[in-house]
């Protein structure tokens, strides 16, 4: 208990000089009390511990009248907090009124209406003590300093990860901005054609002039792929990227990168 009293002295002692004696708080001090206490449970606990206040001795009528005045004030300050205090006084009044009623003989000790409040007060007090204990425990950044020597960041930087979703998202943005999507659909077929266009250009770049039929691997490629390849050649020619030459009818057709020079 000793530590508890010290704690109270430290927390409340310096905050303000006028300590509350009961739940009857002068309205001009209300704001100060609301700041100093964590809520009605905290205030009640303080009164019980410090002034041996009996829950039943609280002058309820006076208190109620006063709390109604608070509500007006609260509209400007902290309405939420005031609501908590009002709920608490309502609860106290309820307890008191039930205590005043004649007690049926068979009702056991545990049914004392104050028992629930006492349980809550005790639980809150335990948490309060736990919080105070946590607060004084050594903490990294306050009392504990962790070793953090420097090291040379050698740059073995991994390149950024890119997912298919990232790529699609980027393309979607391009389309959105270029307003292309209503006219342009790129499907599987077109992508295959464009892929083959790149492949053929690569091949022509290394091999120079290639005979038309050499671009078709009839033995191992399926019909679909051959068609795509053919479309790619046509597209390349259309875009002026390659030049096709044939010496005479029925002689081999040669393809080469369009160098812009006349053959």
């Amino acid at each position, binding site marked *: *208990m000793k530590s508890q009293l010290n704690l109270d002295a430290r*927390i409340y002692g310096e905050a303000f000089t006028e300590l509350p004696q009961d739940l009857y708080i002068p309205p001009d001090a209300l704001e100060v009390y609301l700041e100093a206490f*964590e*809520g*009605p*449970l*905290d205030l009640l606990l303080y009164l*019980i511990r410090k002034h041996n206040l*009996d829950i039943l001795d609280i002058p309820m009528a006076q208190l109620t009248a006063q709390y109604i005045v608070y509500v007006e004030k609260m509209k400007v300050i902290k309405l*939420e*907090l005031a*609501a*908590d205090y009002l709920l*608490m006084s309502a609860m106290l009044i309820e307890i008191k009124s039930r205590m005043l009623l004649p007690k049926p003989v068979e009702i056991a000790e545990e049914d*004392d209406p*104050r*028992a629930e409040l*006492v349980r*809550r*007060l*005790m*639980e*809150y*007090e*335990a*948490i*309060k*003590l*736990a*919080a*105070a*204990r*946590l*607060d004084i*425990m*050594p*903490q*990294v*950044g*306050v*009392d*504990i*300093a*962790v*070793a*953090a*020597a*420097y*090291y040379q960041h050698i740059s073995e930087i991994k390149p950024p990860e890119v997912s298919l979703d990232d790529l699609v998202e980027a393309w979607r943005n391009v389309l959105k901005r270029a307003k292309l999507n209503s006219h342009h659909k790129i499907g599987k077929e077109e992508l295959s054609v464009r892929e083959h266009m790149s492949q053929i250009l690569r091949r022509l770049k290394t091999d120079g002039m290639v005979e038309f039929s050499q671009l078709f691997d009839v033995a191992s490629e399926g019909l679909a792929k051959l068609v795509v390849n053919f479309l790619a050649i046509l597209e390349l020619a259309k875009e002026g990227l390659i030049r096709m030459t044939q010496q005479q009818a029925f002689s081999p057709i040669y393809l080469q990168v369009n160098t812009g020079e006349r053959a």
Partner: protein
Amino acid sequence: MREPDNITEMKQILEAVLLTAGQPLSLDDMLKLFAGRMERTTLRMLMDELKQDWAEKTLELVQVASGYRFQAKSQFSEFIVRLNPERQAKYSRAVMETLAIIAYRQPVTRGDIEQIRGVAVNPNVMRQLQERDWIDVVGQREVPGRPSLYATTKHFLDDLNLRSLAELPQMEDFEQTEIPLDS
């Protein structure tokens, strides 16, 4: 540096890594250093040796919830504090009480916290604790509204120098006098 081939070199690597880490390192983290060439038991043994090696020095090797870290021995804290006057500010009572409820009663909802403290929880309080990475949401309670359930994190334990929640001061130790019902 080639891959280390003896215990001394391995211990040196571990020491250098731990001294520069700035945070606890788990055994798994440290095993990565040796590309699968070290057993867990060997690593544990090396940690014990390192602890011994530093026993008489300025730092100590401690084990907290998320692993091992070197930290200044407590007698140096007051000097370290002189260097950074603007260290971590103390939290308000509201924050500390909320933290205590989450630590001791987890997992709890905001409603549970309000019930125990008897006042509404200021969202700012939860935000402070979450930003510090001391609490996080671990699920929802299956009641209407599915309120979030909060629990403390490993980082909270690390920051309080604890290996597990069981190392928190025991609730039972907070001896309280009964509140008398009859006077």
